[in-house]
């Protein structure tokens, strides 16, 4: 480790340092607003440091971590997402009895895990990052410990995440046996020299896909998603759906592209099947739901199905399509959960569709925000979701992935139905009880997200240019 490595790791170091700093402060004062403010400042500093110009890219920090255009851009998105989630959590924490500040510590630990994941090029850092993230998430999901649902969700997540980690480790082990390497470049060169045992490796990759499938909630490993989303507090569900999944998908892409796994036909078939199944299952199961959080859970299943398309294209376009889709998906989903979080009260969360009846006539701005988010999830023009879907279809057609593109099109139509159900509810005649006044932070976040999504949908050129910089790893 050299001195200049620290420069490249600044964002990670800030995020890793924040829990320690908060713990030190907690020994002096337990004043929540103060600690909350310091956390926000910490996140802000991390965002600035990640945007800081670096002398040379890509830069390898030992053989575990590689800082490159891909990881920097994703980390920026993840940190902005983390900042928004923290801001949205304020209301929920405000109602929370007992410990509040610990929540912030755990959020930072989880963010550390995600940032490690996006930059990892080695099985060790990959696994470490994933476990750091998962363990933090168990705590976050069960944060409202007076609620049975929260405990249930946390235990469910804990058991399934452990099982999936076991699969992942087993897969990594098999690949290590086959190639004798643990780092992505090492495995790649071993694969290229073809001194490998095919069956062993294929089994290894298969096992890893099972493990990652659980983390990403791809069908048939999706069963935990709706329960966990429903049981967790809305900001935590947002964290799982956006930042956490974004980082796992990032490491999956890095692994896939570095090893050129899209050239292995069997794996392509498996992933295509998983992708199509995820799209259909997610969308079809969402249709009958009346719970907005469960709808968003199923919607995230189908969205991850769409995200498998650029994985299989294996080219530059695919990589950029992924980036655009991930950014659009993270911000859109954050906005949607943000509205749920904002409307939730001390007693219960605004999670049923009925809670949104007539919202437009009471809180027009909030309803418009939610409508924009839902239309973006459905992929309607003027929103980021449209451009993102366009980019994915674009990449898919460019690589002749017909089956996946056609099922994306069919699923967009199915998906439209349940997004519209929520929209329709908001525009029904007014009969909601009058709502509480929105907090400043939450309104700020939601307005920023809406503006961002519309901007990405109408003038995507700038963002596209930023992502065009990602040539390879």
């Amino acid at each position, binding site marked *: 480790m050299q001195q200049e490595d620290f420069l490249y790791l600044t964002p990670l170091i800030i995020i890793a340092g924040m829990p320690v700093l908060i713990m030190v402060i907690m020994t002096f004062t337990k004043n929540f607003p103060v600690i909350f403010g310091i956390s926000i400042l910490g996140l802000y500093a991390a965002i600035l440091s990640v945007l800081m110009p670096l002398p040379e890219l890509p830069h390898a920090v030992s053989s575990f971590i590689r800082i490159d255009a891909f990881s920097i851009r994703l980390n920026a998105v993840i940190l902005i997402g983390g900042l928004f989630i923290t801001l949205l959590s304020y209301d929920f924490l405000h109602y929370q009895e007992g410990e509040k500040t610990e929540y912030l510590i755990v959020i930072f630990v989880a963010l550390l895990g995600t940032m490690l994941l996006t930059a990892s090029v080695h099985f060790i850092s990959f696994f470490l990052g994933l476990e750091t993230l998962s363990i933090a998430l168990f705590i976050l999901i069960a944060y409202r410990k007076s609620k049975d649902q929260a405990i249930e969700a946390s235990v469910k997540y804990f058991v399934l995440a452990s099982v999936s980690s076991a699969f992942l480790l087993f897969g990594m082990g098999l690949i290590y046996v086959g190639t004798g390497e643990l780092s992505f470049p090492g495995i790649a060169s071993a694969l290229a020299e073809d001194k490998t045992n095919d069956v062993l490796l294929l089994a290894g990759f298969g096992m890893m896909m099972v493990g990652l499938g659980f983390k990403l909630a791809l069908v048939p490993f999706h069963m935990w998603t709706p329960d966990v989303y429903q049981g967790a507090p809305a900001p935590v569900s947002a964290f799982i759906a956006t930042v956490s999944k974004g980082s796992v998908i990032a490491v999956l892409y890095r692994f896939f592209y570095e090893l050129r796994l899209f050239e292995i036909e069997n794996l392509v078939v498996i992933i295509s099947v998983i992708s199509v199944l995820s799209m259909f299952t997610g969308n079809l199961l969402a249709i009958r739901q009346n719970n907005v959080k469960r709808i968003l859970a199923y919607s995230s299943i189908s969205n991850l199905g769409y995200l498998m398309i650029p994985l299989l294209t294996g080219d530059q376009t695919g990589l950029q399509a992924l980036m655009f889709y991930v950014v659009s998906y993270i911000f859109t989903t954050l906005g949607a959960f943000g509205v749920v979080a904002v409307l939730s009260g001390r007693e219960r969360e605004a999670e049923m569709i009925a809670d949104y009846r007539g919202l437009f006539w009471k809180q027009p701005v909030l309803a418009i925000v939610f409508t924009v988010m839902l239309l973006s999830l459905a992929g309607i023009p003027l929103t980021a979701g449209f451009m993102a879907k366009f980019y994915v*279809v674009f990449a898919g057609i460019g690589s002749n992935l017909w089956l996946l593109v056609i099922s994306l099109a069919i699923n967009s139509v199915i998906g439209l139905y349940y997004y*519209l159900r929520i929209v329709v509810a908001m525009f029904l005649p007014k009969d909601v009880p009058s709502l509480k006044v929105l907090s400043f932070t939450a309104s700020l976040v939601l307005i920023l997200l809406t503006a961002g999504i519309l901007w990405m949908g109408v003038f995507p050129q700038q963002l596209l240019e930023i992502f065009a910089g990602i040539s390879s790893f």
Partner: protein
Amino acid sequence: MILAALLAILIGSGILAWLVGRLNKELPRYIALVSLMIDLILTAAIFFNNQGTTDEWIIDFSAGWIPHFGIGFHLAIDGLSLLLLLLTFVIGIVSVLVSWKEINENTGFFHLNILWIIAGITGVFLSLDLFLFYFFWELMIVPMFFLINIWGHENRIYASYKFFIYTQAGGLLLFIAILVLYFIHGRQTGIYTFDFPALLGTSINPSTAFLLMLGFLAAFLIKLPAVPLHNWLPDAHTEAPTAGSVILAGLLLKTGVYGLIRFVMPLFPEASVNFAPYGMGLGVIGILYGAKLAFAQTDLKRLVAYTSVSHMGFVLLGAYAFNEIAYQGVVIQMIAHAISTGALFILVGQLQERIHTRDISRMGGFWQQAPAMAAMGLIFSMASLGLPGLGNFVAEFLTLLGTYQSSILVTCFASLGLIGATLYSLRIMQKVFYGKAKSLPAIADLNLREKVISGIMVIAIVYLGLFPGGILATAKPSLKKALKESTLLFSPERNQLKFSDPLEMFKSNSIP
């Protein structure tokens, strides 16, 4: 630049109307009216300044939008789009006027939706970049969804879902077809662009071209609507508020025809010619089936909605006849149908406002009580059944004349549609205006605002029926352009009847 301004005015005033609507209920109406008037005047200015122009495009405006994908902000106007734009703004003004008393809740948001639908439609008629076209194509759906969903009648939610999902499904297939075309062109030439003029010359192998054309058709035939895909229309039209029905019938359906003529025919001439028998078949089925269903309705608004299916069948028929006369008929039909059906929807709206029902069995004898309204009903029923002297007659006559050159058999069946039209139009008159008065409290006749609206429509439909020459001359270059490729492929030896020039026919008032 002026073309971009047309769009900017509509979008901007929409937002303004919404913001102002929270302070004052009446102001949004004036904002909408004024912005549509400005657009109408600007378009009319283009119309009068460029008569007899021979350029391919009267105005061609191009700017970068998303160069990363080769997407440009390319707008252009020619005779056909000019006519449709004039129609768009007139219908837009009418739809604002008819809502003056009907819509009292949330006028700001209502007019935002109206103006954005009009903006979407304007964009569709102007775009020459296929991505931009698709963007506007989708843009008009969302506000229309809200219009039906919020201000519609009893069954509005079901109808709005159906409308959205149908059109969206077609739109996605269109989108995929556009993308495939983009890649085929890009791989051939190395230039990746969505620009329509650039894509025109792309050579595609016939079976791919046929599939791509089906992708385009999916979107356009749903909007048109052609018969197996017409299911959304009766619900959407019936449940929408009057302004929504007027815009749906008058403008939204026309975007499908426009897409067919502007994009499908020139891009896939050979595939279109191969599809012609099916296209004409669907057209005839639409004419007859629509007329039959219209006759069977008891809900007056639904009846009018089904007449749309029947009338649009003529348009589809003419579009696949591949000759200029039929295309002239199509253009006139687009305008005439917008006016006559729009007027009938307005009439139904006025009746519903007065007697709070659309059930024909509860109407009757309104002739004595409301003579002005009954006169309007008579004029537009006659227009609908194709009475000479009114616009629809010219349209249907030209369409059948053109179709006759392509297929005599199909023309024979299509002509039966005129009998169907007579049946359902007379039924409207018979049941609603004649007979014994049924509603006990007498209904009020048209007031000044309603008379003005109907007056505009009457003048338009009569003008169209008596002097279609100007319109035909304006549209002629565009139609020639659309037909350039396909007429060569369409077996010319079957054209037994030869007319020198359809314009001559109207000038001399005698058929050679």
